[in-house]
Structure formats: structure tokens, C-alpha cells
């Protein structure tokens, strides 16, 4: 779809907005509706749009598959690390109060960090699922060409 001018222009215009909106949902998650899960999906949707227009290879240059695997795990590790930090500082697992001095500040810090981990993991998992399916299609096509 790289040749279609309208798609290219619109995508170029939309992708930054989609990603910005994703980040907006991410960092407003602790007070308003939103949070890591939705933000991750929206952010990944921007990347998927890019992959649809410019092709999977170009999209994988932006974020290689190996990086997706690492980030997918890193997000959950961040979540668990915040949880463990609560235990180390003398509270329970996922206890945010010991993290900072102020009660509100501690809760806010804890939730934002945890949600960031969720966002990273959800975004990369969605990208990875898309990549695996998209790759399958090209593999299947290649196999068909060989058969003929």
C-alpha cells in the first residue's frame, strides 16, 4: 500500500497523533479513565498502521522482534520490581505507601510506574502477535510460489 498517496499522507499525519493519544491515556491512567492496558493497545495500533502502509520489514526496523521480546518481559519485571520494592521497604507486595514520603505521592508514583510496565508489555505483545501472523502470511505466500 506504499504506492497509495492518500494512505501515505493520512498515515503520516495520523500515526504521531495515535501515539500521542496512547501516551496521554497512559499518563492519565491514575486519575481519569485509562491506564496501561488501553494505552498499550492504542500505541501498538499506531505501529500496526505503520506496518500496514509501509510493510512489515520497515516496521521491524523501527522495533526489531528481539526488542519486542525483551520489552514484553521488561514491562512485567518493572511491575514486579515495584511490588518487591514495597516488600523490601517494609510493607506488603504491591504496597505503594512505603515508596515515597507523601501518601498521595507514593500511591501516584506506584500506580504510574506499574501502569507503565503494563503499557510496555501490552503494546509489545500486540505488536508481536501482529508480527507473527503477518509473517505467517508471507511465509505461506512464499510456499505457494515455490509450489507453482
Amino acid at each position, binding site marked *: 500500500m506504499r504506492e497509495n498517496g492518500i494512505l501515505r499522507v493520512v498515515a503520516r499525519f495520523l500515526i504521531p497523533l495515535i501515539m500521542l493519544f496512547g501516551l496521554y491515556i497512559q499518563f492519565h491512567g491514575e486519575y481519569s479513565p485509562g491506564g496501561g492496558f488501553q494505552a498499550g493497545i492504542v500505541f501498538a495500533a499506531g505501529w500496526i498502521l505503520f506496518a500496514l502502509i509501509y510493510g512489515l520489514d520497515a516496521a521491524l526496523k523501527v522495533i526489531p522482534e528481539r526488542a519486542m*521480546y*525483551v520489552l514484553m*518481559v521488561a514491562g*512485567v*519485571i518493572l511491575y*514486579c520490581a515495584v*511490588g*518487591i520494592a*514495597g*516488600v523490601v521497604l517494609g*510493607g*506488603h*507486595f*504491591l*504496597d*505503594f*505507601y512505603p515508596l515515597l514520603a507523601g501518601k498521595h505521592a507514593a500511591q501516584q508514583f506506584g500506580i504510574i510506574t506499574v501502569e507503565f510496565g503494563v503499557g510496555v508489555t501490552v503494546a509489545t505483545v500486540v505488536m508481536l502477535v501482529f508480527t507473527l501472523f503477518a509473517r505467517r502470511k508471507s511465509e505461506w505466500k512464499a510456499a505457494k510460489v515455490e509450489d507453482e
Partner: protein
Amino acid sequence: MTITELMPFSVLVPLIASLVCALLPGRFWPWAVTLVAVIVSAVIAAFTLPAAAQVTLSYAFGNWPPPIGIEYRVDAANAFVALLVAGMAAVALPWAKKSVDKEVPERQGAFYALFLLALSGLLGITLSGDAFNIFVFLEISSLATYGLIAHGSDRRALLASFRYLIMGTVGATFLLIGIGFLYIMTGTLNLADLAERLPEVRDTSTVRAALAFIIVGMGLKLAMLPLHLWLPNAYTYAPSFVTVFLAGTATKVALYVMLRFVFTVFAPDWSFVVLPLSTVLMILGVAGMFAGSWVAMFQPNIKRMLAYSSVAQVGYMVLGVSLVSVIGLSAAFLHLFNHALMKTALFMAVGTVIYQVGSARLKDVRGLGRTMPWTLTAFALAGLSIIGVPLTAGFVSKWYLIQAALDQGQWFLVVLILVTSLMAVIYIWRVIEAAWFQERSIKQPDVGEAPLALLIPTWILVALNFYFGIDTRLTVGGATAAAEALLGGGMTP
């Protein structure tokens, strides 16, 4: 750190280790990390049981006090099941190395990560005191299990995994519908809180429907007779190590969830009265015992035979539950523990045969008794346990089951238990006959004895079968404490 603060880490350690495992390359490190995590988890579970038998432990996640926050609530019943699950994983893992290297040669990091997720899911189900949390952990363990089964080298593993996925999802959805109904009626998800608030509203069709949904949903995960169709294929085509692990743990945890809801949340003086639960469970249990043993007698594949035997053993546990007495429930918990011991030992022996021969069909085992004496002797001895020969663990649980039946004057149940035990003699004997009394055909390749790395863990489990057949302090004590915890201090309805 007190044991209450340490207890949630038997779930969290495998969970966090699975993340590390997913990124580790090669064949050694994923296994080593898994082993360490599983041993830590098992040790914590072992320390939890004596503490939980004395006083109910409660751990509030994020310091949000229950019933608003998520709580881990551990009494003798779940500590007993958690120790079984973590212990079985710790015993099976040393055996796993060689078998997994052969059957899952690539991407072992992902394989062991899935295994750890399944383990932490199963442990989370047992320890959690929150109904929705139980559902979430059930999904974690189920999804990981589908992935594990699909790793089987046979292509039919994919179909078996997909079938289990459909059935398992139906089961989990039923559980969720039941939990949803309870939430509508009471506005709480905490199990202890539910138990307090339910008596006010329990004479409504919504709560009755909730009970029915939860029992059917867990009956599916438990492989209770008419809902067992996913189990034989899943066990047959999964990698040997996955079968070893699942046979000892997955169905047991589902049984625990069912008991927790029926006894703690709904209270037995209501749930066994409003629905004819006792009769239904007794009929299904007996039918499972017979149908499972009957089909097992004609299976050409040993793994499949043992899978059907598992359906029969689940029948014994359900039968123990249906008697609704402390001794009946103790027998169910005892059989839950002992069945895990004997089935794990049997599947390990079969997995060792698969490692050497590459197949578990009865005709490929012919004459192996002479070339692989240690493996098949282990199989025969573990087989004695499943038959219920005195001095084995299987005898102890059947003895208690018979006592529970006699306690209520149900003589015919004793006869049925003995008859199905005789059927177990037949299906175990078929393997022994093939291994020792039939000649190996010339066309079949000669094989030697299996490596020690597989034999030693198998024999440890066989030894445990005999140990717990003689020294029953841990098993009978734990099972009785678990039954009393569920029935509320020995009260019978």
C-alpha cells in the same frame, strides 16, 4: 519475616522466575532457574502447612485490607494442596532435564517459562482467598497449560491442546458466571466475606444457579466423568514431562476449588440440601471409577491407559466428597495426595520408556523387562500403589475411603471400590505381561537401560509411594486437618 509475609512468595517466585526464563537462551540456564524457583516455592509451601494448620493465615496485597483488597487466605486445606503442587513440581523437575531435551529441543526458555506460569497459576488458585483472583489464576494456569501441551512432538498434540482449550474455556467461563451471580447477590468477591453474606440471600434461584455453574465449571477442569473428554488426548500427546506434572497437580487444584466453594462459601448444610449434590456426585464418582478403569483396560497406548485411569481415580475422590463426612473428605484429600504420588511415578516410568524407545504403545514395550529392568520394576511397583496393595500409598487412601463408606453403612460402595481395584490389576498387569512375558520381535531395535538422571527421580517417587504407605503421619494428618478446615472444625451436617 514471618511465615504469613513469606507465604505469597511461593506464588510470586515462580511468576517472576518465568519472566527471566523467557529470555534465557540455551538448554541449561532455563532449566536451572526453574529448578531453583520451584525448590524455593516448595520450601515456602512446606513451612506454610504447619503454620496454617494452627491458625488461618491472611495476607493483604498492596496493604488494602480485605474484603476490599485481594487477600491470600490459607488454612490447612489450601496449604495441603499447595504443598502437593509445589512438591510435585520440585520432584518432577530433576527428571525433566533429559526428557525435555529430547522432546522439546528448541526454545526451552519459553517452554520452562510456560511451566513456571502454569505452576504459579495453580499455586495462586490454591492460596487466593478472592473469588475473582481464583478465576484469573485459573486462566493463567490454563493458558500456560494449553501452550505446554501443544509442545508435544506429535502433531495431534495441537488438536488435543485446542480441544482442551475449548473445554477449559467453557469450564472457566462457567466458574466466572457463577462468581458473577454471587457478586450480583452479595456485592463481594472475598470468599470469607461471601460465606458470611450468602445465608441472607441464598434461597434465591440466582444463588442456586451460581452453585450449579461453579460445580459444572470445575467438574470440567476436574475431568469428572461426563466432562472428562479433554483429558485422555491432552495427557497422551503432551510432552512426557508436562503429563507428569499435570497428572499430579491440575485436576487436584480444580477439585480443591470445587470443595472450597461447596463447603466454605456455600456451607455444606445448604449446598448438599438445595441440590441433590451428594447423590449426583456419588453416581458420577462411581460411574467415573468404572468407565475410566473399563476403558483403561483396552488401551493400546500406556500413556492413554494411565490417562483413563486418572479419570477413574478422580472418581474415587469425588466419591469421598459425596459422603459429606470428615472421614469421607479426608479420604478424598488423602487420595488427592496419594494419587499424585502414584500417577507421577507411573508417568515418569512411561516417560523413561518413551525416552529410550520413542513410543509408549504396548507392543513397543514387549520384552523390555529384561533390557530395562529398573524402569519397568519402578512401573510395576507404582502400579501396586494404584491397585491399592497394602504397604503402598494407594492402600491407605482406599482404606480410608472404604471406612468412610462403612461409616454410613453403604456396603455396596465397598464392593464397587474393590471391583474397580481389580480392574486396575488388569490394566497394570497388561503392561507387566508385555514387558516380561512376551518376546521382543527381531524387527524392534534393542535398547539398554535408561540413564540414571531419569531413573533416580522415578525411584525416589516409587520410594515415596511406599514411605507414605507406611508412615501416614503427614498425609493422614494433613488430609484430616484439611477436611476439618473445610467442614468447620469437624462439624457434619
